[in-house]
């Protein structure tokens, strides 16, 4: 009996020692949130913690909604989201104020599979809204033909495909449709999941891609980086200056630069339909959600160091992973916001 007790005590003591030394060796930060920037975040955290004694950052891509919930509950040190938090959501976080730091940019592109069409198709914002609300139901509708002169469009029904899982991609796309179509705004609105007027729901970007490829005469939307990496066909969208633009990393960054002048102090801004001749209209920031107060001085230092690194060195990793880097106007503004972290 006594022997057993001693053993138990020994184990307990060893356990405490291990926990104790772990906390001293390095700072550990835990984050959770958006899946869209998951690839670049894991690259960043990997590179950032390479030097010896660098803070360890663990990021869990569970979705924007989940990230905000965990941050509100205080179970993570920082969150990440593809859509800015609402005023009520920020108020719900009692312990501190949440700061938004844009990290990279993403674009959303219309992708399609139309019989006999091999080239790029052109879309205007209101046309996309009419297609996705079912008003324009055939591919050879005059509204589509008008902006695609010379393309032979089939007289076939359009099959709509959308994301079935809640997603930042859907938020950006419906945010754009709401900004160009008052009818879309009042009837459907913008969100991670919306009440689609019809069509098929597919799970994840890979589900959407598979569904579009497998369904003749279908149309959907995917993230730009997904379309680039999988060499999917995608269309050009007319921007605010009336120019038909195919999304690229440059045109998405240009959208952020175009919106930079009117950028609010807290960075909670939608940059769909941004001004600028070269600005791609369906673009968005993705944000890190950082508390403005840290009780642990080491954690605070780790977060500040990371943000500084992310805004300079981190941005150079973006293009290789098909994310659009921040324009320098935004980087300069964000560096000022870092001072707000206490």
């Amino acid at each position, binding site marked *: 009996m006594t022997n057993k007790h001693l053993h138990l005590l020994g184990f307990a003591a060893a356990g405490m020692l291990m926990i104790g030394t772990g906390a001293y060796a390095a700072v550990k930060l835990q984050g959770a949130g958006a899946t869209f920037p998951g690839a670049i975040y894991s690259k960043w955290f990997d590179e950032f913690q390479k030097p010896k004694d660098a803070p360890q950052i663990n990021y869990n891509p*569970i*979705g*924007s*909604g*989940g990230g*905000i919930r965990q941050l509100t509950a205080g179970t993570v040190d920082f969150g990440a989201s593809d859509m800015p938090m*609402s005023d009520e*959501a920020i108020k719900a976080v009692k312990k501190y104020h949440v700061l938004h730091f844009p990290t990279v940019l993403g674009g959303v592109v219309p992708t399609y599979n139309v019989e006999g069409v091999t080239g790029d198709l052109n879309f205007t914002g209101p046309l996309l809204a009419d297609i996705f609300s079912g008003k324009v139901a055939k591919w050879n509708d005059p509204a589509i033909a008008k902006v695609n002169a010379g393309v032979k469009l089939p007289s076939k*029904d359009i*099959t709509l495909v959308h994301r*079935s*899982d*809640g*997603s*930042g991609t859907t938020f950006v796309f419906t945010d754009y449709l709401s900004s160009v179509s008052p009818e879309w705004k009042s009837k*459907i*609105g*913008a*969100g*991670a*999941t*919306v*009440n*689609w007027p*019809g*069509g*098929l*729901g*597919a*799970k994840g970007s890979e*589900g959407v891609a*598979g*569904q579009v490829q*497998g*369904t003749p005469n279908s149309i959907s939307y995917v993230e730009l980086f997904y379309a680039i990496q999988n060499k999917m066909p995608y269309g050009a969208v007319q921007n605010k200056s009336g120019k038909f633009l195919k999304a690229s990393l440059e045109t998405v960054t240009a959208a952020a630069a175009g919106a930079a002048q009117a950028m609010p102090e807290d960075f909670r801004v939608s940059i769909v339909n941004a001004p600028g001749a070269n600005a791609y209209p369906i673009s968005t920031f993705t944000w890190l959600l950082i508390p403005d107060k840290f009780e642990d001085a080491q954690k605070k230092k780790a977060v500040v160091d990371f943000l500084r690194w992310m805004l300079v060195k981190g941005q150079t990793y973006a293009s290789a992973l098909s994310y659009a880097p921040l324009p320098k106007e935004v980087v300069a503004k964000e560096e000022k916001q870092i001072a707000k972290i206490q």
Partner: protein
Amino acid sequence: MATTSAAPAPSHGRAHSFLGRLRNGDEAAHLITLMFACSVLAIALLLIYELWIHSSLSRRQFGFHFFFTQVWDPIAGQFGALPFIYGTLVTSILALVIAVPLGLGAAIYLAELAPARLSNVLTFLVELLAAVPSVIYGLLAFFSLVPILRNYVEPFLKSTLGFLPIFQGPIYGVGFLAAGLILAIMTFPFIISICREALLEVPREQREAALALGATKWESTWQVVVPYAKLGIMGSVFLGLARALGETMAVTMVIGNDPRIKASLFAPGYTIAAVIANEFTEATGDLYLNSLIELGLVLFLITMIINAGARLLIIATTKKGSARD
């Protein structure tokens, strides 16, 4: 659980005999296994409690309308479960309609008719099929079943049986029919496996008696062995149904995920398990989350009603069986 904490308390004499029995081992085994059994109850109750508590907002807001509303609009804050209940029931019933005759037929062959070696090989394969993860079935369905349905099966059904409302409307490949089929494929091994066990447990005398009375092999199987194994066969059906009701991954990949009630089996639909898996991670706002959790409660309720129904059915039919004896 209460028994264990109260156990050391009783008076000295009783404690002594209790210790005596404890030393025997019987009492200890009894208590420990009782605790394990209670954990089943505890988990079930905890599940209901959690689902009930975390769905309070939507229960208060929508009340019983939740069951009858067809709108699911997270932006407007309108949530109704009807299309999901419909989709869950339609796909599960479709799965059983296909899988039960197939499974029972296969089980009869394996248990009664097949040569032993063939039976062993096939049984091994059935068990292998039952162990395949559902996402594999989902991928299989998405990449092979759906194109076959879209290009051959559904156009054929539409042209031959198109006068029936269940075979009308546009063809996408994905939809109720695809989901029902993949669920049938997934429940099929369970049904074979359990039916086969049930048939094998029928005493040999039953068969011999039937044969002695002049029945053919098939008559003895269909009129004596199968009715004798009725309980096990029904058990397999309800286990298959439980799997179909709760299946998530494979269904969401092929059902089309559109919360609408349509008569056509070609139309896209949605199930309770699929919508929870799809929308839970990005759900913002308390009412939205509460509604998703209430959907979980609804699924629990459906499973409970079906299980209770199964019990009643079994009780009713066994009574009839014994009366005939």
